[in-house]
C-alpha cells in the first residue's frame, strides 16, 4: 500500500494487484446491488408507479387494519389489508410519532389501501395498527402476493431488537 517505495522495482505489480482487487470488490458490490435491489415504496407510491414497477419484487410498507385479518389455518393462507402511511419523517413527527401516524392512517377511510395475501405462518406481531413491510409483487387480481412479511410495533420495538422476520 502506502509503504511501497518509489524506487521499488516491483512496485508496478503490487499496484496492479491492489487495483485488480479493488476493482473486483467494486464490481461485486455493483453487480450484486443491480441484481438484488428492491424498491421500497408506500402504498400511494406503488399505485402511482403502476406498471413502471414491472414484475420486479417490491417492498411495501403500510399499517395493518386489524378487522381485515383472515387466516385460513388449514391452507396457511393469510389475508389482510394495509393502509397507506406517509414515508415522510416530518409528517410522522407532525402526527406525534409513528404510533400516532399509524393510528391516523387507519382512521383515514379515503386513503389508499392494499390487500395482501401471504402463504405461511401468521406472525405473533400481526395485529391492529402494527406496521407491516411486505415483499412480493402485485398480482393480476389486484392482490399483493407477499413472500416475506415483516412486522414492527412502534411501542415495543426499540433499540437492539432485530425485526421479527418470517418467510423469505
Amino acid at each position, binding site marked *: 500500500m*502506502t509503504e511501497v517505495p518509489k524506487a521499488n522495482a516491483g512496485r508496478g505489480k503490487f499496484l496492479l494487484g491492489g487495483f485488480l482487487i*479493488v476493482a473486483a*470488490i467494486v464490481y461485486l458490490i455493483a453487480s*450484486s446491488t443491480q*441484481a438484488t435491489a428492491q424498491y421500497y415504496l408506500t402504498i400511494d407510491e406503488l399505485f402511482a408507479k403502476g406498471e413502471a414497477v414491472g414484475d420486479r419484487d417490491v417492498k411495501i410498507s403500510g399499517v395493518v387494519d386489524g378487522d381485515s385479518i383472515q*387466516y385460513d389455518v388449514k391452507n396457511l393462507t393469510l389475508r389482510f389489508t394495509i393502509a397507506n402511511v406517509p*414515508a415522510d419523517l416530518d409528517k410522522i413527527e407532525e402526527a406525534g410519532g409513528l404510533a400516532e401516524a399509524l393510528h391516523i392512517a387507519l382512521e383515514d377511510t379515503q386513503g389508499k389501501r392494499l390487500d395482501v395475501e401471504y402463504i405461511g405462518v401468521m406472525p405473533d406481531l400481526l395485529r391492529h395498527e402494527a406496521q407491516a413491510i411486505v*415483499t412480493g409483487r402485485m398480482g393480476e387480481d389486484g392482490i399483493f402476493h407477499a413472500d416475506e412479511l415483516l412486522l414492527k410495533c412502534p411501542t415495543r420495538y426499540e433499540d437492539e431488537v432485530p425485526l421479527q*422476520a418470517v418467510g423469505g
Partner: protein
Amino acid sequence: MVANIGYYALVITFLVSIYGAGAAAYGALKRKPEFVESGRYAMLLTWPLLTVASAAIIWLLATGHYEIGFVASVTSNSMPTYLKVTALWGGQEGSLVFWAWLMAAFTSAASLRKWDRDRELLPWFIMVTMITLAFFISLTVFFENPFARLWLSADGQQVAAMLQPTGAVPLNPPDGRGLNPLLRHPGMIIHPPALYLGFVAYVIPYAFAMAALITRRSDDRWIRITRRWTLVAWIFLSLGLILGGRWAYDVLGWGGYWGWDPVEIAALLPWLAGTAFLHSVMVQEKKGMLKHWNVVLIILTYALVIFGTFLSRSGVLSSVHAFAKSAIGPMFFIFIGVTFLVSLSLLINRWEMLKGENFLNSMFSREALFLLNNFLFMGILAVSFWGVIFPLLSELITGQKITVGPPFYERANGPLGLGLLILMAIAPLSAYASSSWKTIGRALWKPALVSLLVPITLYFGEIRNPIALMGYTVAALVAFVTLYEFWRGANARNRRHGENFPLALWRLVGRNRRRYGGYVIHLGVVLMAFGIIGIEVYQTETQATLSRGEQVTLGSYVMTYDDLSIFDTNDGRNVARAVVSVYKDGKLVDELYPRKDYYFDSQQAVTIPGTRSTLEDDFYVILVGLDPDSRSHATFKVYHNPLVNLIWIGGVVFIIGTVVAVWVNSDRRRWSKASPASAITQA
C-alpha cells in the same frame, strides 16, 4: 430521591470528564505535570461516579419505581429480580449509562498501568477517552435521561421529564410495561454486555494511537501497549456476535441465526475492521511496515464502534419508514464526523514520521498475504457498509428508496469469504520477506492432495452442489494445513528436545501463543464454515396444520402431533405447549415441546422452538398456530438444519483460540526471535 442522586452523579461525571480532558491537555501543552495529574484523578473519579448512577438505576429497576419513565418501559411486577437488574441494558437510556460505566472502568484500568516509558502519552490518552466518555454521558444527561420522571401534563399527555412541567401532575403507574419478552432470555442477558465490552475496549487502542500521533512517537509502542486490549476487545466482540446468533436461533423462531439486519451489521463492521487490524499489526511488529495503514484501521475501528452504537441507538435506519427521529441521531453524526476528520488530519500531518522500514518484494511473502487478507476484510466491510447506507443514499439522491436484503450480502460477501478461507490455507505456510509460489507449493501439496478426498467423497455421497463442494474442499484444506502446522511444530520439538508429543504440542503453543492461538481460531472458523455451508445450502423446511395423531414428513424425519396444553404461569405468561414425537427412519427418537408464550404485561407472544439437536443436524419445530378451544389441531413450521451445531462448536473453539492468544507469553524474547515460519518452510 434516588433518581436525583443518580441524575446528579451523571451530571457531575459529565463535568468531571470534560475537566479531565481539558486539564490533561492543558498540562501537556504548558508542561505543567500537576494539571496532567489532576486530569488523571478526574478520570479515576468517573468510574465511582458512574457506579453510583448505575446502582441508582438498578435500585429503581429492582424496587419497581414505575414513576420513572425508563423503569416503567423495561420492567414489570411479574419479572424476576435478575431480569429487572439486567433490564439496565434492555432499553436505550439505561444501556447508554451501562456503556459509559464499562468505558470508565476500562479507561481507569488502563490508566493504572506503569507509565514510566510512556509518560508523555498519558495526558493525550486521558483527553481522548474523556472526550468520548463526556459525549456518551451528555446523551444521557440531555436527551435520553434514565432518571426522567413520568408526568401527566395539563392537556392529558404522558411526558417524561426531570422537573415538573407547569400544570402537570406526577404519574405513578402501579405496574410497568415489562421488558420485551424477546429479551427475557439468558443469551440476551450476556449478549449486549459482551458486545459493549468489545466496543468500549477499542476506545483504548484508539486513544493510545492518537496519543502517539500527537506526541510524534514514531515507534510502535502504542501497538505493543495495546495489543492485549485489542485482543480483549476482539474476544468480547466475537463473543457478542456469536451469542447474538445463538439468541436469534433460539428465540426469534425463524430457523436462522443471522439475518443481515442493519443492527447485526452495526456490530459486524467494527469486528471486521478490528480483525483486519489484528492481522496487519503483526506486519508492523515484524517488519516495520504498514504503519499508516494500522493507524487508519484503528481510527476506522473506533469510528465504526461509535457508528454501530449510533445505528442501534438513533433509529436512523428503521426510522426511514418506521421510527420517529431520535434526538441523539444528529449528535452521533456530528461526533463521528468530527473525530474521524480530526484523527485523519492528524495522521496526514504526521505522515512522514511513519515511514515504513521495509518494502514488499514478494507476492507470496507473509506480509503480502496479510495485506491481501486486509483487502478482503475491507471488501466485506465495504459491502456490508454499502448495504446499510444504500437505502439512505438512494433516497437522498434519487428521492426513491431502494433497499437490498440478505441476497445482496450473500452474493457479494460469499466470494470474499471464500477468498479469506483460501488465504487461511496458504498464509500459514508463507514466510516473511521471501516466499515464492514454489516454497508455498512445496508445503501445500500434501494437505491439498488430502483435502481433494473431501469433494470426491461428498460427490459420491450425493452432495453435488458446487458451492458446497468448493466451500467444503477449501475449509478442509485449511483444517489440514493448520493441523499439519501443529504436527510439524510438535514433531520438530519432539526430535530436538525428545519431548513426548502432547508435551511438545503444549510447549509449542505455550512458546508462541499468538501464533498458535490464531491457528486455533482458524480451526474454529473452519468448523463454523462447515456449519454455515450446511445450513445455508441444505436447510429444508415445511409447514403443516395437523390434527391430533397426524404426521408431517421432512427428509428422513416424521413428526406426529400428540397433544397441546394451555396454562398460565405465575410469572405472568400464558403458555400454549404442544407435544410432538419425532421419528427418524421409522424409529422414535425424541419428544419435543414447541411452545408459544404470551406475556400479559407487554401483550406480546414469543414463539419458542422445540429442537432435537445432534452433531449431524437440528430438527427444529415451531408452534405457529393453534385452535385454543378444541386444541384438536395445531400448525407447525418444521426446519431441518444440517450441521448447524458446528457453528456453535466452532464459536467455542474460536473463543478458546482467542483466549490462548491473549494469554501473554511470559518471556519477552518473541520480539527479537525470527519467525519460525521461515525455518519451517525451508525445511
